[in-house]
C-alpha cells in the first residue's frame, strides 16, 4: 500500500510557497520594462510631434523646438562606430573561429571578455586622453584632428562594440558544421573563399544579429560621449567638430531648470527607447524560428 509520509501536507505547502516566490521574482524582472515604457509614454508622448523630429532645439523658455540634430547626430555616431567596429569585430571573430591557434584564441577570448566588462565611462576618458587631447597623426598626416569631435565619439562607441561583435561572430561561426568547410576545401576552393562564401554566408544572420545587438547596446551610451562628442545645439557640418547625440541632449535637458526642456528630455528618452526596441525586434525577426541554427 502506498502511504504518504507524515509531513506530506507540509512539503506540499512549502513547494507551493517557493513556486509562488519564483513566479513573483519573474514578474519583478519584467515589471521595470513595463514601468519604464509606460512612464516614458506618459511623460514624453505629449511633446512628441513632427517638430520634434525636424527642428533644432529651442532656447530655454521658448516653446516648440525639437531634437532633429541629436537624432541625426546619434545616427551619424552609430554609423561611424559601425564603420570602425564592424569590420574589426567581424574579422576578429573570423580569426578566432577559423584561423587562430588554440593558445592564441584562449588569450584573445579572455582579453575580449575583460574588455566587455570595462565600464563605458572608461572608454570616454581613454579616448579623451588619447584622441581628443592629441588627435591621431600617422606619418605626419592628421587622421583625426585634436578636440571634441564626431570622430572621437564614434571611436569610443566602436571600442564598446568591437568585443561584443567579435564574440558573437565567433560564436555563430563555430556553430557552422565542419562538414561544410571540409566539403568546400575538398573541392579545391581556397581557404579564404571557403571562409567567406561558405562559412560566413551560412552564418550571416547570426553575424547581423550580433552587430544589431551591439548597436542597441551602444546607442544609449552617454558616458563615453560626454568626453568625446561633447554635444552641440546646432547642426554639425563637420565631423571633426562636436556633434549632438540623443543621450547627451537628454542628459543636458534633464539637468536644466526649464520645464519645456524637461518635457523635451522625456520625449527624447521615448524616441531612444523606441529606437533600441526596434533594433531588438529586428533581431527577433532575423532569428525567428531558428533558435540554434543561426
Amino acid at each position, binding site marked *: 500500500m502506498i502511504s504518504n509520509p507524515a509531513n506530506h501536507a507540509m512539503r506540499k505547502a512549502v513547494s507551493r510557497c517557493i513556486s509562488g516566490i519564483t513566479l513573483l521574482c519573474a514578474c519583478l524582472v519584467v515589471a521595470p520594462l513595463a514601468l519604464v515604457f509606460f512612464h516614458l509614454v506618459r511623460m514624453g508622448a505629449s511633446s512628441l510631434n513632427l517638430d520634434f523630429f525636424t527642428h533644432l532645439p529651442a532656447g530655454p523658455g521658448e516653446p516648440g523646438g525639437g531634437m532633429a540634430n541629436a537624432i541625426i547626430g546619434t545616427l551619424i555616431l552609430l554609423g561611424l562606430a559601425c564603420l570602425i567596429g564592424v569590420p574589426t569585430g567581424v574579422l576578429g571573430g573570423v580569426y578566432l573561429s577559423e584561423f587562430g*591557434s*588554440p593558445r592564441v584564441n584562449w588569450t584573445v577570448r579572455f582579453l575580449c571578455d575583460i574588455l566587455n566588462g570595462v565600464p563605458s565611462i572608461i572608454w570616454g576618458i581613454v579616448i579623451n586622453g588619447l584622441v581628443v587631447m592629441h588627435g591621431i597623426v600617422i606619418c605626419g598626416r592628421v587622421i583625426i584632428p585634436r578636440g571634441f569631435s564626431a570622430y572621437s565619439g564614434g571611436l569610443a562607441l566602436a571600442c564598446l562594440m568591437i568585443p561584443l561583435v567579435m564574440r558573437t561572430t565567433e560564436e555563430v561561426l563555430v556553430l557552422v*558544421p565542419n*562538414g*561544410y*568547410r*571540409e*566539403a*568546400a*576545401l*575538398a*573541392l*579545391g*576552393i*581556397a*581557404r579564404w*573563399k*571557403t571562409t567567406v*562564401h*561558405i562559412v560566413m*554566408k*551560412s552564418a550571416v544572420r547570426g553575424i547581423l544579429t550580433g552587430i544589431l545587438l551591439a548597436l542597441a547596446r551602444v546607442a544609449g551610451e552617454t558616458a563615453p560621449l560626454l568626453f568625446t562628442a561633447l554635444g552641440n545645439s546646432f547642426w554639425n557640418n563637420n565631423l571633426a567638430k562636436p556633434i549632438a547625440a540623443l543621450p547627451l541632449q537628454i542628459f543636458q535637458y534633464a539637468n536644466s531648470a526649464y520645464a519645456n526642456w524637461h518635457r523635451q528630455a522625456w520625449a527624447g528618452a521615448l524616441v531612444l527607447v523606441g529606437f533600441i526596441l526596434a533594433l531588438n525586434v529586428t533581431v527577433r525577426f532575423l532569428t525567428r524560428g531558428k533558435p540554434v541554427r543561426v
Partner: protein
Amino acid sequence: MERIQDIESASTVAPAAAFPLKASAPHAPAQRNAFEVTTLNVWYGQKHAVQDCTLNIPERTITAIIGPSGCGKSTFLRCLNRMHELVPRARIAGTIRFFGQDLYAPQIDPAVVRRRIGMVFQKSNPFPTMSIAENVTVGLRLNGIGNRAYLRERMEQSLRMAALWDEVKDDLGKPGVSLSGGQQQRLCIARAIATQPEVLLMDEPASALDPIATMKVEELIHQLSRDYTIVIVTHNMQQASRVSDKTAFFYLGRLIEYNDTEKLFTRPREKQTEDYISGRFG
C-alpha cells in the same frame, strides 16, 4: 608481417567477371598507377594512426579500403588529397606520388591537389545556403569560372552522371538540403565530379543510406569507374566485394593485405584478413 604489392598483376588480370560494366569497358593498353604510396606514416599528436603503409593504386579502378573502426583507413584516404592537414597536430612521413608527382612537395598548393582529387564524405553535406544547381557548380564558380552556358552544361552533365538529373531537373532552384538522404549524397557526388577531377575519394559514402539508396550509389560508382580512379573506404565487406577491383585491408594502422578483390575475399593470404572477412572480429 608481409605486405603484398602486386602492381604487375593489376595490369594483366582482368577485373572479375562479376562486374560486366567494367569488363566491357575498353582498357587503356598500359595502365598507369594513379597513386604510389611509399612507407606512409601518419600521426595525430602522439597517436600513430597509419604505420609504414606502401601500396600502389592503379588508375581507372575501384579500390576498396576495409578494416574495423579506428584502423586508419579514413586517415589513409585523407592523406591522398591532403585533407588530413585540416586536423590540428597531424604529421606525415613517407611519400605519395600522384601520376609520378610528389603530392607533398613544398611548392604544391593543397587546393590544386584537391581540385584534381575530389572527395565524397560519409555524411552528405550539401551547402544549406545554395540551391541544387548552385551546389553542383560551386566548385567551378568559386574557382573563377563565370561562363553561365558552360556552368549550366557542366551542371546538367554532372547531375546526369550522378544519376540524379531526372529526379531534380524541375527543381533545380530548390535548396539542396530539401532532397532525401540518398539524393543528397548523389548531389554531393555530382558536386565532386563537376570540377572534373581525375580521382574520387569516397569515405563510407553509403553508410548513412538505406539499402535502395545504397544500391543506387553503388551502381553510380560502377559507372564512374570508367572515367575515374575511385578509392572507397567502407566498413561493409559485401559492399567492398560488390563494387571494387582491388581491396586493401587495414588493421591497427597497418596495411595487412592488398590484392585483387576476388582473391582477397576468396583466398586471403593473411590469417588476420581471413578472420576479419569471415566475421570473427571487427
